[in-house]
């Protein structure tokens, strides 16, 4: 089965054979996922978050299932940017899919450092910046929570690479549109949204937090309505393309995000319980376009019908 041109879409200057990517932290470095799905049929892969140096990650327990979702506090365990381009990238490049390393740091310099290392890697199509990390130099608040800091790290990374840069927004903010505008002004080529919502779970028998890290990130279908709303709001605030993330498990879910304003989507938690989810969505989107007589999925992006103007 080959995907028709109907699903082809360009985001941030990157041409994707279809708008379905796997989300960072939910497909390893792509290769593990290749054991269960055909990466050649996937739009793209956002890798597990990479830092300049390898990271150990948090103590267990790292995951807790909740109603309709899960909390994770992996602690950004990763093999480091260098090991990625040496051990993983050469094999990942053999697949016909777009490769988008997800990058993070705890200072602006750490972001730059990680990106500089990745610049040595061939076959990388762009970067996704995870800005939900605490900015340790600026009081430990998350970069993503402050328009100024979000813009600062975006601009710095844009200056460090000529590859497209997609910035990943957090839903844990009062005004996501304001952050989006700041990041757009700072030069971001695209935005991906949303990252996980901060949550917590307590074992009432032991009275201890279920996660060793106390709090964690909520993902999965539970957060989908919040994520769709974020995409809808941001689509009205910026001109750069959006990539929708949050609880996407079925074709309908993906369509909701696209209609709300996303040019592409990322499948996250769903891959854990349904490894074929991304593949099913690729097929399902094509079937939908066919059924609706659409020439291109592009015609659906932001095509939500409103009775009133907002």
């Amino acid at each position: 089965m080959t995907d028709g041109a109907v699903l082809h879409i360009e985001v941030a200057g990157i041409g994707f054979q279809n708008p379905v990517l796997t989300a960072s932290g939910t497909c390893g470095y792509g290769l593990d996922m290749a054991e269960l799905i055909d990466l050649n049929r996937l739009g793209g892969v956002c890798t597990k978050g990479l830092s300049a140096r390898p990271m150990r990650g948090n103590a267990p327990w790292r995951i807790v299932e909740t109603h309709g979702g899960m909390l994770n506090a992996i602690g950004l365990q990763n093999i480091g940017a260098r090991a990625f381009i040496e051990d993983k990238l050469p094999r990942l490049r053999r697949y016909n899919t777009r490769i988008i390393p997800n990058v993070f740091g705890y200072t602006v310099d750490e972001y730059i450092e990680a990106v500089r290392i990745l610049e040595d890697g061939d076959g990388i199509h762009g970067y996704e910046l995870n800005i939900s990390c605490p900015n340790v130099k600026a009081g430990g608040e998350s970069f993503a929570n402050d328009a100024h800091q979000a813009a600062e790290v975006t601009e710095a990374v844009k200056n460090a690479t000529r590859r497209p840069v997609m910035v990943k927004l957090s839903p844990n903010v009062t005004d996501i549109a304001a952050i989006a505008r700041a990041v757009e002004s700072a030069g971001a080529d695209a935005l991906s949204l949303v990252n996980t919502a901060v949550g917590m779970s307590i074992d009432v028998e032991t009275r201890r937090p279920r996660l060793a890290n106390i709090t964690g990130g909520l993902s999965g279908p539970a957060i989908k309505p919040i994520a769709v709303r974020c995409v809808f709001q941001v689509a009205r605030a910026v001109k750069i393309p959006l990539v929708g993330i949050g609880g996407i498990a079925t074709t309908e879910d993906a369509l909701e995000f696209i209609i709300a304003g996303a040019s592409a989507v990322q499948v996250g938690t769903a891959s854990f319980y349904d490894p074929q989810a991304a593949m099913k969505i690729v097929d399902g989107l094509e079937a939908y376009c066919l059924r609706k007589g659409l020439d291109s999925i592009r015609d659906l992006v932001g095509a939500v019908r409103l009775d009133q103007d907002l």
Partner: protein
Amino acid sequence: MRRFNFRAYRVPGTNFPAAELDYGLLADRLRGDRLLIDAIAIVERNQLNQSASGRRYGELRLKMTNRVEVRPGQFAMLKPHADFEPLLRRAMAYYRCEDLADGLRVEFIYQILGRGTQSLSRLRPGDMVDLLGPLGNTYDTQPARGRRALLVAGGVGSAALYMLAENLRSEGVETRLFIGGASAGDLPGVDRFEELLGAENVICATIDGTRGTEGFVTEPLQDHLRSIEARGPIIYACGPDPMLHRVAQIAEKSETTTQLSLESPMACGFGICVGCAVAIKSDCPEGFVYGKVCTDGPVFRSEDLYWAE
């Protein structure tokens, strides 16, 4: 070359019950040198039991239309097909496997604890189950050749040891099982082990003393190790963490090689979530790094594990 197979499934985009999906294989791929499949299996039998201690267990027998080699200690990720809740599949050790002319029959034993196992307990013959497997590594029986093997099971941990016992028997290794639980009804599969190994080679321990010695299973294990000569047997254990830790300590003292099958909360079971962290000794300054129970394990050599204080 990797083998790849992608079977037609119902294209989503309709509101129709997922239960109308064709059952069968969704995907199979070679993982290293072994076949891994994502399939829909059919329930043949799901037998529920309650023990005197109030614990409840299920024995689930599934049939699949595909054949795949399962090795002792491996596990599958299971979930009733088309269930929305809980989202995540649950890891279950393969208890028994039987090759059929037209597929494979697999059995699991589960203790009914939370939402995942409750949903398994509601399965009835004919129902469909999402099954991803076989996953994880296998016990290494090499070091057991020419020695004796001691299997140590805590509760439902026995499930992970049955195929190992079969293999050891067929390799001619003298094998003994120490199995512990809360009460006589909390020793899943014990009768089958007695059949396989002979009743004299199955040593039971129960907290309430209703079968075998009273107390923890590690007591008779320790007694046994004390009673035997230097070149110790090899120990294979599966059970709750505290039991495994105790076994590791006992084994260390008697300089016995030990392989432990670990549990951990798992989101994916195939290496992509990094949720199933286990501390593994390393010569880095902190003395350990985190490995993944699902792909680096679930079987670990005791001496490789870094036990938190």
